[in-house]
């Protein structure tokens, strides 16, 4: 029984960590612009697919991964520069629709640049399962958990200790005031797209050895990441991480103990219940403006 519980917990944590990374991407862009970037899932896809195609050319994984993250970050920056910035001043709804368009465009582009096949990626350190308290876990899951933890720590340092991070945080709290103290808010928005894209790409690379990658892998992961971000409270870093982990564990626990046929429904019911009692999510900013 406890071994079973341990298995569900470990699986839930791994899946949840990926959701958390995607959710963090949503939150960072939301903070900078109040835009929900529906192309976030596509960054996940670009990360995975770019790594697969780079390793296929013979590059070692250690080189392919940073390159793929850089590619995704560049796409993120380009998206901001050529699609979001020209529409500056448009309503948030318009910007959101632009990101939906961008996501369809990027997915279509991926089928042309790459293909429509599923691709496996080699695990970072082997496939031999590790037995832990009666449960088995793949080395790749440890990578997922470790890297996610490292990123969360790095981000909290970035937002808490660096000038640029503080500027981004200030912009999210009060755009006008931030502008008045000399923060280039356009620059902040630009960077936030690059950072989100890089985070998404990392998620896509980490999950590829476990669940493969293809041109449309971003659709579901993007959606789950969005649910996690809303659950935790849009715009909250802690919320994104907690939301992701809660969602992941809720899914596997309900698949294990209740019914796998309804596991997605159960996860959604949890989210609706949270939003019903706490409309701005678990850690969201309480405010009248968004009601």
């Amino acid at each position, binding site marked *: 029984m406890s071994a*079973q519980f341990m*298995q*569900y917990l470990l*699986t*839930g944590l*791994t*899946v949840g960590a*990926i959701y958390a990374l995607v959710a963090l991407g949503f939150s960072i862009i939301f903070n900078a612009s109040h835009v929900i970037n529906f192309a976030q899932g596509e960054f996940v896809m670009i990360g995975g697919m770019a790594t697969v195609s780079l390793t296929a050319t013979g590059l070692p994984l250690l080189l392919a991964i940073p390159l793929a993250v850089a590619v995704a970050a560049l796409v993120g920056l380009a998206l901001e520069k050529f699609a979001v910035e020209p529409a500056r001043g448009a309503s948030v709804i318009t910007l959101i629709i632009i990101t939906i368009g961008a996501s369809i465009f990027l997915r279509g582009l991926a089928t042309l640049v790459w293909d*429509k*096949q*599923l691709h*496996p990626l080699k695990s970072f350190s082997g*496939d031999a*399962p590790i037995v832990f308290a009666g449960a*088995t876990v*793949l080395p790749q899951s440890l990578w997922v958990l470790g890297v996610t933890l490292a990123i969360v720590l790095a981000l909290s340092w970035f937002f808490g200790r660096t000038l640029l991070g503080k500027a981004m945080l200030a912009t999210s709290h009060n755009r006008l005031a931030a502008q008045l103290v000399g923060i280039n808010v356009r620059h902040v928005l630009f960077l936030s797209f690059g950072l989100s894209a890089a985070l998404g790409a990392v998620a896509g690379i980490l*999950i590829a050895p*476990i*669940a*493969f990658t*293809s041109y*449309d*892998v971003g*659709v*579901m*992961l993007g*959606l*789950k990441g969005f649910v996690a971000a809303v659950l935790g409270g849009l715009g909250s870093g802690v919320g994104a991480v907690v939301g992701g982990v809660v969602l992941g564990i809720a*899914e*596997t*626990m309900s*698949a*294990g103990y209740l*019914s*796998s*046929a309804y*596991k*997605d429904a159960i996860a959604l019911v949890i989210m609706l219940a949270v939003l019903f009692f706490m409309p701005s999510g678990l850690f969201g900013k309480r405010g009248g403006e968004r009601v």
Partner: protein
Amino acid sequence: MSTQARNGFTRCLAAAAAIFAFCTVPASAQAPIKVGAFLSITGPASFLGDPENKTLELYVEKINASGGVLGRKLQLVAYDDAGDADKARTFARRLIDQDKVDVLVGGTTTGTTMAVVPLAEAAQIPFISLAGAVVIVEPVKKWVFKTPHTDRMACEKIFADMRSRKLSKVALISGAGGFDKSMRGECLGVAKKMGIGVVADENYGAGDTDMTAQLTKIKNTAGVQAVLNPGFGQGPAIVTKNFRQLGIKVPLYQSHGVASKEFIKLAGGAAEGVRLPAAALLVAETLPANDKQKPVVVNYKREYESRFKSDVSTFGGHAYDGLMLAVEAMKKSKSTDKAKMRDAIEGIRGYIGTAGVVNMSAKDHMGLDQSAFRMLEVKGGNWVLAK
């Protein structure tokens, strides 16, 4: 141009010279025979529709190069429905009303096929579908035929193999797609008849990245002797990997939905020992020399792979069978009259295609039996015939 047409033309000239009358070359003698196709070349079912489209193009070209059918060329009119049933209906309407095709070959998915069935029935045009589900030919529809095996046959084949290995308690784990659900239903339906007890029935979602929770549950279910995973796409490959990760010792069966090299590539070493039912095409070269299907499948495989430089799939084979059945019917009835062609298709016996030996009848518009499926097993990173 046939001699008949030239004679007609000469006669016209003579007549025109004599009486100045308006006259045309007899149309039927030179107009091409039109084969109408609506396929899911793009969209979620593109991995089915794309090889189907390539196959039709390749073989229409080849047939024309060797003189066509009944002295006439074939003309392929193909549209891409992107897996959308509404679009399939619109394109089928266009094929029937505007393009005036002689026969319909297409319908990559069960959804697109079923959307077109009423049109084909109303227009009274022979329609050979390339989709899997049993509803297409059951109950029998006068003008509708299909070439692939049904999922029910796959279930029966798998269960028969389990029985021969003395396994009778099976756990199901299936995906959320249409194929997965349909096959799960069929398997549950025939399990009892085949003497199989279903002791667990788990599901996973379309984009799920991990199925260890469901498999842990199966592992802890008492008495499970085999696991069956009806599904396609990345799901079955993830299930296979998780299955090995958890160290589950019972045999794992997959469906014909993942019968391709791709599955082994994705699941890697975890795929070793996995069994599934599939058409002979997948193991073309390793078939025994006296196998009736061997020349057909080896030939198709060679043609396809040398032309498109990609691995052959059973789905392209369905399109090959569909086109060849239509051509066979034209030759047999010596006409392109729709009713005569329909009767000829229904009368086809002993035709050897990539899916198996086809014996059509008034009661069976698919004409395949269990012998069409081969039980395959992954050994050394390749599909081999299971012993």
